[in-house]
């Protein structure tokens, strides 16, 4: 049986900035994601993990290899995948409501006004933004903006949700709250999620599997760590789990010592 989301020997080369041929960002990345699982790639900045996410999104093309989602090769963006961006990427000229509405309407072109309104309201309520519908993103805090980003992404009901360091620009205190909210939403929707982050605690809290990516150039997935901590999870209970610090230390050791491939 084929995997739900199959990343098959994907490589990416960029023109070398010094003008000497091509530079390999990562090479022969291969893994499968089962439906309904939350998989995270952890790696240093610049290892190409966001490029990998963009390839799955269809925003960039791989230099080699391919991505197969539900039996179909990905060669362009589509409504079966939706990205939550690190910098939120909300339309600043649209209200919270209209930002979500743009997505709901795109995902359901056959819906009438009433259905669209019900859909938008549902997802705004889901992320706890009821009452802020008419505000523009500039009037919101980072945490609230990313709630809009999450509402927009979930409202498309994608087969795969792609989270690109979604909470990196949110202050530390809010970050914990919104991570937990995402966890609760995900427990209900059970979307397939592919996330990239460099926040180890975030990865452990949210993921079923964590893939450790080495530093570029020629980055690769060195190891896959299964997170056996049972769900439902919460920030306070996760850190009390006997495996938590073992997993955490293992990943940190990897990032500090082994990810460099000799030239860190």
């Amino acid at each position: 049986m084929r995997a739900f989301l199959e990343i098959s020997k994907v490589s990416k080369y960029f023109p070398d900035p010094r003008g000497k041929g091509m530079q390999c960002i990562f090479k022969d990345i291969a893994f499968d994601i089962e439906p309904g699982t939350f998989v995270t790639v952890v790696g240093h900045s610049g290892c190409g993990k966001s490029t990998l996410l963009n390839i799955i999104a269809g925003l960039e093309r791989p230099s080699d290899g391919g991505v197969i989602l539900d039996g179909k090769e990905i060669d362009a963006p589509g409504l079966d995948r939706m990205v939550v961006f690190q910098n939120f990427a909300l339309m600043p000229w649209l209200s919270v409501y209209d930002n979500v509405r743009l997505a709901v309407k795109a995902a359901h072109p056959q819906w009438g006004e009433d259905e669209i309104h019900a859909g938008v309201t549902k997802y705004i309520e889901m992320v706890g933004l009821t009452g802020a519908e008419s505000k523009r993103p500039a009037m919101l805090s980072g945490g609230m903006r990313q709630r809009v980003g999450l509402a927009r992404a979930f409202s498309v009901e994608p087969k795969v949700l792609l989270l690109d360091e979604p909470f990196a620009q949110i202050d530390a205190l809010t970050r914990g709250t919104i991570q937990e909210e995402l966890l609760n939403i995900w427990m209900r929707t059970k979307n397939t999620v592919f996330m990239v982050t460099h926040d180890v605690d975030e990865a452990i809290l949210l993921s079923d599997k964590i893939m450790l990516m080495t530093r570029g150039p020629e980055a690769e997935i060195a190891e896959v760590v299964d997170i056996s901590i049972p769900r439902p999870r919460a920030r306070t209970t996760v850190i009390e789990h006997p495996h938590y610090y073992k997993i955490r230390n293992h990943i940190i050791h990897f990032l500090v010592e082994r990810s460099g491939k000799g030239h860190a």
Partner: protein
Amino acid sequence: MNSSLTVRNEAFRIGMLSSIIFLLAMFFWQIASTPSVGGRTQGLPGPLAVAKVTWEMLSEPFYDRGPNDKGIGLQVLASLGRVAVGYGAASIVAIFAGVMLGLNPTLLKAANPYIQILKPISPLAWMPLFLYTIKDSTGAMILVIFMSTLWPTLANTAFGVSSIKRDYLQVASLLQLSWWRRFFRVILPAAAPTIVAGLRISIGSAWVAVVAAEMLVGGTGIGYFVWNEWNNLSLTRVIFAILVIGAVGLILDLGFTRLAKVVAYTE
């Protein structure tokens, strides 16, 4: 409390300075309008004479006593009508072409030298060509206005669209927006502040161009009025018309300042 006091103080000083500038202008105008000793020049019409004509002209703006004697309101409306047609058509063309160029960096670079050559040409330089080809003075005037307003809007639109943040376009393609929705929901609002800045420059050029074009080939319009009153040697009315041209230009500009506020957004 403190800051509102400072603001009021500032507003007072601006008002004072404005009044001083006005009084100085009136003073020099009055000097310029005094006949020279010995009576070799008569001097310009003074402020009072112009105020009197202004009152007369504005109290009956829409009279029509034949081709060379129409109220100022009719003349201004004739000019504004030409501007509306030429400016409207040029804006639509410029915005669509600008979006195409802005989304296509290669095409923009290829077209840029030609835009740069065409941009500094005075729109009036095209007048003989237009008169020769379409043989209609009204059409030629409208085309001159078209040429005067095309380039600022085109250049601003192309620049505004080419500097739209990549994120917005990525979201548009992730959501698989149709060309139409992408254009009206993402590209236009994202570039709107820059486009409106271009439209504002363009309406200024259009208003400048229409006066000059009407002086050359008009038969109606505020520019024709100026030329006609010069031929009648009525400098009082010429000065009055200059003030009207300024006032209408100011109102047009204020409209676009309003529009700029509507389309502005903060990231």
